[in-house]
């Protein structure tokens, strides 16, 4: 039995001064992740400090936009949707949705690629993934 992913309406994303560059890039279809320049390690979610050293010696760098499903679940609501953690090729695990697919066909370890989905009003798009 197939369960097509719903195109549920997404709430507007609240942008703040610190995460604005991430969402500006998302509007351009680019996925950025945090990089701690003290340690050379990537981090998620984007923030203004390094979660490894707490310094502000951080920048956003472009990710390839591909990864695998680390874990997922399908919310069996009126409009079913899949919540997942996707492990990017860069190593970080991103809280997201898997979309544009049969929700009953998903598997842990499955390859996925990034897609951007519109949210309400003029807010930036949400960063989601679909089977690669």
């Amino acid at each position, binding site marked *: 039995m197939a369960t097509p992913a719903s195109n*549920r309406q*997404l*709430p507007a*994303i*609240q*942008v*703040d001064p*610190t*995460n604005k560059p991430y*969402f500006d890039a998302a509007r351009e279809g680019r996925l950025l*992740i*945090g990089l701690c320049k003290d340690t050379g*390690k*990537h*981090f*998620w*979610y*984007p*923030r203004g400090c390094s*979660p*490894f050293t707490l310094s502000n010696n951080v920048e956003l760098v472009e990710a390839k936009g591909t990864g695998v499903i*680390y*874990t*997922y*679940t*399908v*919310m*069996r*609501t009126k409009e079913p*949707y899949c*919540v*997942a*953690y996707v492990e990017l090729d860069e*190593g*970080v*695990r*991103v*809280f*997201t*949705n898997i979309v544009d697919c049969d929700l009953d066909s998903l598997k*842990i370890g499955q390859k996925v690629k990034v897609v951007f989905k519109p*949210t309400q009003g003029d807010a930036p798009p*949400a960063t*989601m993934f679909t089977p690669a």
Partner: protein
Amino acid sequence: MSINGKAYIVGAFEHPTRKADDKSVAQLHAEVAYGALQDAGLSKDDVDGFFCTGAAPGLGPLNMADYLGLTKLRHLDSTDVGGSSYVLHVGHAAEAIALGLCDIALVTLAGRPRAEAMATGTAPRSWGVNVPDDPFEIPYGRTVANAYAMCAMRHMHEFGTTSEQLAWIKVAASHHAQWNEHAMLRKVVTVEEVVNSPMISDPLHRLDCCVISDGGGALILAKPEIAKSLKRPLVKVKGHGEATKNQNAGYTDLTYSGARWSGPRAFEEAGVTPKDIQYASIYDSFTITVLMQLEDLGFCEKGQGGKFVSDGNLISGVGKLPFNTDGGGLCNNHPANRGGMTKVIEAVRQLRGEAHPKVQVPGCTLALAHGTGGLLGTRHGSATVILERE
């Protein structure tokens, strides 16, 4: 400093209501506070330490202290780590008493999510404003149910845990709840009934989820001299541990909980091991919560939780580790969406020998209560206490 033996739980009260259409949250706080003080044989002017959380109406403890008429307070604590808070408050109250910061501490919890028709588990919910992770999680429909379901999915993938094994946790809770006249779900259920109940968030079924209820509870802790002057059985705080677990900068690992850290801290302070525990109150927001915490507390090896909970091993009088003999959050209640309070209360009942006779653990002298608050799949608080009948 160790808190072992420095404080006693001298009063405990669980509100009998499960749907409080006719009472405010503040009034529920008053009723549980009064009930616990009556149980202890104390009055409100004896209280000089007050503990509550963000679930209490108002600014920290201020508005409730006012409503309750607490005028002798010299120690306050409104640490909020969700449902685990009240387990943590037992530890913090014991610490405060040990340091002489207060002599008699009151801990209260109350709420009415059921009367307010709250979709506790299935509606996306933020914890406040300016929360930095919200823009990266709320738009994706993060709910309580799916944050725990993702842990269950990964546990099944890594360790071969099955839905039937998770169902045994609900079955055990229902065996206990049948004897609790206040429990919301008193019908004994089977593994088949659990796995055939509607899917909420794969792989968690409706019967893998706790109930939504109104009500609350309260605890009174006191220093040894006072505890020994009262008429109630002596329940000593022997050990406490607390921890937070988070996403680890994006290298999140959903196969374990913060119990991995809070548990050993509590056991070390108490000077006992999991094998010594005769009764365990284990936070049961969902079946998977119980399974992972049992592993992380050391009741079984990591990955063996499914096997451990099967075949009635958690049923009092049947299995090796009687748990949640009031029916727990899975069957009895989950007041204010926070189950830590009732975890401590049922452990106190067991140690006093005041649990229902059908579920009372004979000669119960050592018990554990453990809570997980927040979301197991993102960031959560973890608190463990070990209590002893003296």
